[in-house]
């Protein structure tokens, strides 16, 4: 009877996504190797560029002045753009279609004919997407460690670990926003586009708040505002309030999704 503890829908979700998970993980392994591996060749040029004021043109990103250091370079090139933005878009895209695609393809009809509750479907879809986040985090972290050791750069691996722990809560928050959209919207493409638009809008808001001191308050409306990858990686300084914001987002979005989906008409 306690079907929920057997996580069959979650396991199925993992199976459905294993290929894309491996592809994204490999992509990030490659990208991480490329960026960290490239640093020694660029170091001198970067120092020169920074001293000539080139860094100012990157002031829409936090800590742009640190580009010439290994941690700064890693943060700006890899974590700030590819990790927090591009990966969030990829994962958000997948999460936003998780339930929508079952509704759009009408496979939800048969799924719901089984003795499973609607809450269980939403919850297990969420659980089923967690391994994707864990695997990508783990692979990227290991790659950074490996390459850093090979090129003999200075990096606190404890801070790196912390960075990836916070990343997990960040991406889980992204997944939950995606799931909320996927129960609200019935068309897969529409749901995914809305998700991408939300992430871009939040990135834009954060950039504006960084560039214009008068608009700094705007940043608090963006998820990016709560995760300073440079501070974690360089100083081990985790924004605890930020982590709580992620946890709150996970709780609120997931609860709203469960409640909304429970009362939604599944029209054939």
């Amino acid at each position, binding site marked *: *009877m306690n*079907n929920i503890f*057997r996580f*069959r*829908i979650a396991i*199925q979700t993992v199976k*459905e996504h294993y290929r894309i998970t491996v592809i994204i993980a490999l992509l990030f392994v490659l990208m991480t190797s490329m960026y960290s591996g490239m640093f020694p060749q660029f170091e001198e040029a970067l120092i020169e560029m920074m001293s000539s004021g080139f860094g100012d043109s990157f002031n829409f990103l936090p800590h742009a002045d640190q580009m010439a250091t290994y941690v700064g370079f890693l943060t700006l090139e890899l974590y700030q753009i590819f990790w927090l933005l591009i990966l969030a878009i990829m994962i958000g895209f997948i999460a936003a279609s998780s339930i929508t695609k079952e509704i759009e*393809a*009408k*496979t939800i*009809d*048969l*799924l*719901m*004919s*089984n*003795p*499973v*509750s609607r809450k269980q479907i939403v919850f297990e879809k969420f659980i089923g997407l967690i391994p994707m986040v864990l695997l990508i985090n783990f692979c990227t972290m290991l790659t950074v460690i490996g390459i850093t050791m090979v090129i003999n750069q200075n990096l606190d691996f404890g801070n790196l670990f912390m960075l990836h722990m916070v990343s997990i809560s960040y991406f889980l928050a992204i997944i939950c926003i995606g799931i909320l959209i996927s129960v609200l919207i019935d068309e897969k493409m529409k749901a995914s586009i809305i998700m991408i638009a939300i992430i871009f809008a939040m990135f834009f808001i954060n950039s504006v708040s960084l560039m214009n001191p008068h608009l700094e308050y705007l940043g608090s409306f963006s998820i990016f505002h709560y995760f300073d990858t440079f501070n974690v990686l360089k100083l081990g300084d985790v924004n605890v309030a930020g982590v709580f914001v992620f946890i709150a987002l996970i709780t609120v979005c997931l609860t709203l999704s469960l409640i909304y989906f429970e*009362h939604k*008409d*599944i*029209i*054939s």
Partner: protein
Amino acid sequence: MFINHFYINLFDALMNVIETKNLTKYYGKIKGVENLSFSVKKGEIFGFLGPNGAGKTTTIRTLLGYLNKTSGEAYIFGKNIDEDIVEIKSEVGYIPGELNIYGHLTGKQFLDYFSSLRHREMILIDDLLKIFNLPLDRKVKGYSKGMKQMLGIIQAFMDDPDIVIMDEPTSGLDPLLQQKFYEFLRKQKGKGKTMFFSSHVLSEIDKICDRIGIIRNGELVALEDIETLKDKMGKKIRVKIKEKPEKFKGPKNMKIKDGWIEFVTDTDIDCWIKLLSKYTILDLDINEFSLEDIFIHYYEGQT
């Protein structure tokens, strides 16, 4: 008195496996179904009849909790659909009208996945696979419509549920498979299983159902044993007379078509035969109502 009443209620609850009371579903302001009250007895094949758009699918989806009812009540096995829908589904199989199966899975993977969700022994799966021979190792997206339909039937019956609700289950099946499927349904009925069979194909309803409900514009217009319904409708009389057909004064429903006088009489054919004997009869047909006639009777002027 009280005990008697108790037993009568208990008896009813045991016998009516599906029961609805004024079940109503509105999509905003648009009526889906309204005030549906019917019951399906244990061990019967209940035919749910109506053309496309009459509200058959809405009824089924409301019963199974896909749609939130607007008002009314519904019980399956005496359990309220609002409170115990998950429990209810462990005893109910369902074949949706528009069947969509995960295309990326093979037939076997799909059945394994659903078996794990049912969490019961799949006692009928071998029998079903003997009837419906399917390439289970192939991905479902490569299946034809008929093959998908077979897979849909297999998943609904594989754990031998007490009720199976079917929404146009034979669409896409060839006539041979349809026959095998009807045989299988009769066998299930023999085991005391209940089936709710929604269709617009009158011949199959006539062939396998014990009782029917006819739905029109979201409302139930007939609910009866098929045979009783046919008897109730009376007889169809077609007669050709030598004289001008207009001369014969038949009942109000009389029509003249290609020189034939056609009318329906509810019970007494004797008086009409006596009346007709005054004319020269060239040909005479007296027929029972077919399900098709009944259906057309209920839908006359509707389409």
